[in-house]
């Protein structure tokens, strides 16, 4: 009768193999904080994209009749000491934050991938030089370099984006080089080499698919980091030049007034904190979902 279910021979049980993406998503979905984070990040992205159209005022519009106004129907998040509508300011901040953070992360990421792959696959003196450079960039907070660069090149969108971008690649380069090295030494690459595969083929078919996961995770952590750096520049007065709003500017500016007009701090600081939290929960969930640590 009920014969012992013995899974022998035939091996392939296609049930599980669907796709790794589906499995990762299944794990991700179970993590409520990560899902919450993802939802907020999506809202944030949408706000960034359509923000300029739904913002009731321009970011430089000043309403002199309603200076330092608490939230009202007219200004749902109040106004600041110059009569800027906080709601509009925040929408524009999201826009600028996204542009700079995504742009800077992209720049860092591209530099990191190129240098990391180069160092890892080439080895030898190239590797030595690149790694010395990585060590140097990693030894001190890149924030110092960002400050110097911003002073040199100015406080506009472009310069800030580039400053954050060209100082932030060390981590990516180190990660990718490490992954490539660990795999290059492994049997997998050796087996492909033995088949006569070219370096290009190995990189494309064997290395990249296996480093994708970790790269996605490090990217997910990279964006909130760049958001923080960007705001941090404003805190020391080196961020986007007003009147362009940014979370950093809004927080810095509210710093001196928040005891009297706390809403100037509530909204930007709250939304910014929530955003960073969401990004981190999302990144953390992503890393757990893509690289499950086995376990019980």
């Amino acid at each position, binding site marked *: 009768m009920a014969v012992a279910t013995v899974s022998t021979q035939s091996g392939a049980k296609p049930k599980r193999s669907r796709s790794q993406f589906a499995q990762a998503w299944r794990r991700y979905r179970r993590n409520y904080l990560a899902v919450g984070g993802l939802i907020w990040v999506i809202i944030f992205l949408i706000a960034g994209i359509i923000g300029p159209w739904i913002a009731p005022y321009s970011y430089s519009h000043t309403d002199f009749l309603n200076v330092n106004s608490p939230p009202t129907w007219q200004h749902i998040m109040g106004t600041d000491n110059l009569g800027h509508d906080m709601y509009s300011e925040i929408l524009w901040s999201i826009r600028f934050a996204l542009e700079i953070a995504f742009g800077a992360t992209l720049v860092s990421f591209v530099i990191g991938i190129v240098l990391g792959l180069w160092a890892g696959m080439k080895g030898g003196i190239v590797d030595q030089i690149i790694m010395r450079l990585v060590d*140097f960039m990693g030894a001190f907070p890149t924030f110092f370099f960002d400050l*110097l660069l911003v*002073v040199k090149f100015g406080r506009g969108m472009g310069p800030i984006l580039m400053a954050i971008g060209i100082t932030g690649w060390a981590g990516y380069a180190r990660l990718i080089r490490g992954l490539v090295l660990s795999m290059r030494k492994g049997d997998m690459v050796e087996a492909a080499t033995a088949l006569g595969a070219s370096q290009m083929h190995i990189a494309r078919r064997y290395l990249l698919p296996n480093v994708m996961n970790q790269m996605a995770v490090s990217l997910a952590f990279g964006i909130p980091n760049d958001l923080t750096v960007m705001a941090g520049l404003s*805190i*020391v*007065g080196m961020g986007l030049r007003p009147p362009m709003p940014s979370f950093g500017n809004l927080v810095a500016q509210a710093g001196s007034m*928040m005891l009297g007009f706390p809403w100037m701090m509530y909204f930007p*600081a709250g939304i910014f904190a929530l955003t960073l939290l969401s990004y981190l929960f999302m990144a953390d969930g992503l890393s757990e979902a893509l690289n499950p640590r086995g376990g019980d």
Partner: protein
Amino acid sequence: MAILKYLIKRVVAMIIMISAVIAIGYVMMYYTPGGFFTASNIASALGPLAAQNPQLYQQILRDFQERYGLNYPLWHQILLYIWHSLTFNFGYSMQNPSIKIMTTLHTAFPISCMLAFGSIVLALIVGIPLGIIAAIKRNTWVDYTASTVAISGQAIPAFVTAALLVLLFGVVIQGVLPVNGWGGPGHQILPTPGQAVLPIVSLGLGTIGVVAKYVRNSLVDIMRQDHIRTAQAKGVRYWRIVMKHGVRNSLTAMITVIGPAFAFTIVGTIWVEQIFSIPGLGQVLSTAFTNDDFPLAITSIFILAALISIMNLLVDISYSLMDPRVKLE
């Protein structure tokens, strides 16, 4: 002997690295339109003085020219500047030529150190137990809560935490803790205990997160390692295994995160001092930058970079002392 050789090697490497930072800073400033490292720029900055006190003006101008070697080629100026910095001969601030930079550092540096070390200590005291508890109760609500707290700390930068704390203690529950300032009349460097709480807490939260998460993950990994099973097979009590074989090993590994955490904290101090109006190095740095006071700005960066380098060296040495497998080389 080996240690000595290692130390010399490390210190030399450190000096080279810091020199590179200074050089980069100098070059940037040199080529910045408003930069001060040209004779004409200095002359124009000292403009009003020329009329008021021509003699002093001439003297300061000569001073500057000599100090920065403004008549020499750029590489010479850079070397000269590096040499001055490394010998702690920082000269005068640009904004306020009568004040020696060293004098400014005298008060600012200890304040920033207090903030940074205070928050690191706080992070270790809170983060380590939090990580241990999360690891032992892994995959329970305790673990999830601790992990969530840790991530939150990591996510929210110190200036936002600081701002929110100021709102909390300045608006919601007033009068419990002071929300700005440092020291008082007669006490420039030492704060009142109350003054120190909020800055240190807002700085420390991020590091608490980093430490707790690291301890938690490494402890979970270690408790799955074979040698833990060996200890169990010896009949060692559970708690002793956790502490002696688990936590001890995981703390050894944790030393390596103190270096980066310290660097992270240093940047945090710059922000937090801004929010709480604390007259530390961070505030010096940011005023220097906003006022284009480049000698002061570069010097502040130099001091902070040196501090971080020394800390990294200490971390590496203590790691090699804790882990017999690590050799200093």
